[in-house]
């Protein structure tokens, strides 16, 4: 088996990672919409584990920034201030890969994620009649996430 070109983080069994993402079991990394993001000629045994660690890193960043954002804006009422918080905006740097993470967090705990979702997806599943209801905006995004298979 080709040796992956990355440093396995401490505490992770390299063999389990290789087995888990064996080329026969996995067709390649996909983006947030389920579309393959690499050329078919890429050696998945190299790419997939790298992608796996990138995914872990993204999740860690997301969780950290999410926690900081909630901490810093917990007492705020202004959505404009809540959505201009530095930690919130940092999540934009994760790109579309952040969308499933945001949807999952929105499902777990309601919060003002709508501004980020609109920017990252360039979509707006909320009808004008529902735009001023926090509950209905949330429901519309969760429904959209389920339809796009980004959310269970």
């Amino acid at each position, binding site marked *: 088996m080709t040796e992956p070109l990355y440093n396995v983080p401490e505490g992770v069994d390299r063999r389990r990672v290789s087995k888990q993402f064996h080329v026969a079991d996995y067709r390649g990394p996909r983006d947030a919409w389920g579309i393959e993001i690499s050329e078919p000629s890429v050696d998945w045994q190299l790419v997939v584990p790298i992608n796996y660690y990138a995914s872990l890193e993204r999740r860690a960043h997301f969780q950290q920034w999410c926690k900081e954002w909630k901490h810093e804006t*917990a007492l705020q009422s202004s*959505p404009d201030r809540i959505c201009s918080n530095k930690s919130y905006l940092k999540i934009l740097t994760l790109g579309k890969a952040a969308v499933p993470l945001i949807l999952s967090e929105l499902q777990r705990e309601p919060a003002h994620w*709508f501004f980020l979702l609109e920017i990252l997806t360039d979509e707006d599943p909320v009808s004008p009649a529902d735009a001023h209801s*926090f509950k209905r905006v*949330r429901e519309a995004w969760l429904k959209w996430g389920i339809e796009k298979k980004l959310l269970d």
Partner: protein
Amino acid sequence: MGHRKEIIRLVMAWGISITEDELRIKFPNLRPENFEKRSLHDPFYNCIGFAGHDRENWWWPSNQKGAYWPNGDTGLEVETFIRAFASFGYERCESADYEEHYEKVAIYSLGGNGTHMARQIKRGLWVSKLGQIEDIAHLTLQCLEGPEYGKAKDFMRRLHLGA
């Protein structure tokens, strides 16, 4: 030591942890003996909606998705808040002092912009929803004055419904 734990518990329900020092900076007048928690954390409504007896909507004069404002105004000036509550029968009044048969609301502001609202429920007792977390009852408006919400400078009143 017990009161410190109570304050910290107040803001930890949302999975956040605000340190005691941070709270002291945000609300220098908040003391365990002058407030108590009245609800579980609920992110679906905020302080302005709560002051207006609405626990279903996040009231804010903004175009952001999910923000509701009764008359559709935008702009953070205190006047925007006053116009919205005037549409529910409130009128401006001079002070926050208790007046029999009247319900009062107070508008906190920083630099002329509204930040927070509290509602008087009886003599010497106000209730507030703190941002995205919980409702509390507090003995004075000064409890929540500080760098986070500014000062309670504007007051409105209306006859108690049914009075």
